[in-house]
């Protein structure tokens, strides 16, 4: 833009600014204007992130119950933390969470990477298939949850029908959601169906970042496809794979929506992951103080684990 045009643009902006605003802005320093612009964000952040966090920390030391707002609130110190960490039910929930996180990540990473590897071959119509594969990820978890609840329905559900079609089992002889044995896997299956495309997408970005000439050099160096995969493809895509694992790990540690819609923790408490326990304590039993303490324990756990993991990730990246 030349000077004349610039001047006239500034002029136009200046004349378009209402006089009272212009007068106020004129009196402010650059720093003050900067604050003015970021203050809405900061206020929102304080109101919906920082303030609840601080309040939760405070509540976790009390016997406060949200359904009895007028009852006397007593400070009970770290009693909640003690009882949570010694409660076998809580550990059962943590175990259910760990099981869920481990298997979803393992399966999704292997499948996601394999899919990415195939799509990266750039066969005919690979763009179309990439889009098709990505569809589950674009759906709302609420939709996916309800939809799979119907599929899993033992009498009318399509899932049981398809299994019986291929294996010859009686479709009403097993219940994905109702059985203690199958329910955890039912959730793993749905989460995998929904989120493998996401892992694939990140892995695909990793594979695409490997320059073609490295493969050409390896080809000339007489490295087999197998060796190329292990010495070039995998090590160079590893930071991306680890990133996908991090994202999926954090997400699934907090997993609530799918489980809530599919099993709501049942049958019994076989699929009661940590967030479901939290919901029950907070909004069914109304033990607000107790659940606040539990939320903080979960937060610290995931934050700590993620931090350790990010350190490892950075080490891999800097290689």
């Amino acid at each position, binding site marked *: 833009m030349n000077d004349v045009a610039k001047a006239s643009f500034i002029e136009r902006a200046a004349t378009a600014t209402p006089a009272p605003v212009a007068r106020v802005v004129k009196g402010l320093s650059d720093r003050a204007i900067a604050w003015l612009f970021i203050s809405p964000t900061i206020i929102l952040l304080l109101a919906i992130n920082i303030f609840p966090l601080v309040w939760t920390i405070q509540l976790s030391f009390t016997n406060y119950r949200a359904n009895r707002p007028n009852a006397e609130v007593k400070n009970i110190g770290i009693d909640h933390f003690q009882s949570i960490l010694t409660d076998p039910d809580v550990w059962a929930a943590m175990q259910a969470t760990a099981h869920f996180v481990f298997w979803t990540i393992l399966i999704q990473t292997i499948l996601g990477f394999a899919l990415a590897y195939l799509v990266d071959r750039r066969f005919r119509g690979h763009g179309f298939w990439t889009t098709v594969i990505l569809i589950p990820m674009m759906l709302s978890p609420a939709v996916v949850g309800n939809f799979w609840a119907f599929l899993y329905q033992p009498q009318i559900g399509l899932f049981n029908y398809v299994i019986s079609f291929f294996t010859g089992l009686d479709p009403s002889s097993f219940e994905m959601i109702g059985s203690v044995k199958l329910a955890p896997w039912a959730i793993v299956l749905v989460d995998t169906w929904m989120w493998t495309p996401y892992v694939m997408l990140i892995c695909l970005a990793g594979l695409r970042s490997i*320059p073609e*000439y*490295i493969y*050409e*050099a*390896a*080809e*000339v*160096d*007489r*490295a*087999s496809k197998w*060796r190329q995969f292990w*010495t*070039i493809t995998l*090590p*160079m895509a590893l930071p991306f794979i680890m990133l996908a694992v991090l994202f999926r790990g954090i997400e699934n540690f907090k997993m609530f929506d799918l489980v809530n819609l599919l099993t709501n923790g049942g049958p019994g408490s076989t699929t009661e992951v940590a967030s479901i326990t939290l919901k029950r304590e907070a909004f069914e039993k109304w033990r607000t103080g107790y659940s606040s303490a539990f939320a903080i324990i979960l937060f610290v756990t995931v934050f700590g684990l993620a931090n350790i993991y990010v350190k490892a990730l950075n080490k891999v990246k800097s*290689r």
Partner: protein
Amino acid sequence: MAEVRLEGVSKRFGSVEAVDDLHLDARDGEFIVLLGPTGAGKTTTLRLVAGLEKPDAGRVHIGGRDVTHTTPAPRDVSFVFQQYSLYPHLSVYDNLAFPLRAPARRLPEREIETRVREIAGLLHIEDKLGNRATQLSGGQMQRVAIGRALVRKPTVYLMDEPLSSLDAKLRAEMRVELKRIQRELGATILYVTHDQTEAMTMASRIGVLDRGRLVQVGSPRDIYEDPVNTYVATRLGSPTINLVPRSLFAEVAAPAATVTIGVRTEHVRIRRNPNGAGRVKRIEHLGDQNHLHVTVMDTDVVVLTDPEERLAVGDVVGLELGKPLFFGADGGRLRH
């Protein structure tokens, strides 16, 4: 080592004829330099020999074997890419050892180490063997890439502007080094460059490419002194050969169809002469030599002179042409 033969090889990318009916015979132990500007098809030719591209027509022979339709691996060539195509997560040592560890070779680790250290010494990167490939400077990376090619004993070395990213001093050093290695190993090398110094100093023979066609193949001396057309004539020589209209030097005896006269800057003799046709317009002092720009009837002629020559801007001079080359209307060379 082996000879390489290209028979009528063609390759097009879309509507671009990258290589067009190319014939080339590189004898065993020859250092062939393919010279040409960007887009002349040099790199494509190399990639066709390596098997990284499949020709649309023609045949490729390496060591007497027809390899036109084979993949790169069985051709057993080594390739130095223009980009440093190092394996970024491996150390310098492992990068150099990579081709030796190919399952087809089965070398004991002791021998691999000896070869790697030998090559590293040759390229002055012994102290970098433990580094990661990404922790090197551009020049060091390219030396590792060259080393990775030299560490093996392939049928033919293919090098795509391997020295272009090195600084001038290292480049001069590597030129000598590469030529020495080539002689010692008796290696067949196909070498791509647009740098005429590299071509002149290293080549057994130079192949000049123009838009996918091999215009002339010959010893550096042949190419320099006996170019087949104006295109080849301008490829070599610094400053570039003078190409002037025939009318400028009417007194020179030339074939009838001559349109352009070419004369190398060092072959123009110049003398102060008040009746001369030229006037000194500009003088470039290069220390060991001077480039004089002389205007003759609105045309600039560059003349290489001794720095002792005491001529000044504005001096009127007479020019005399030694070893003139004559070119016709199409740029083709005309001979007496």
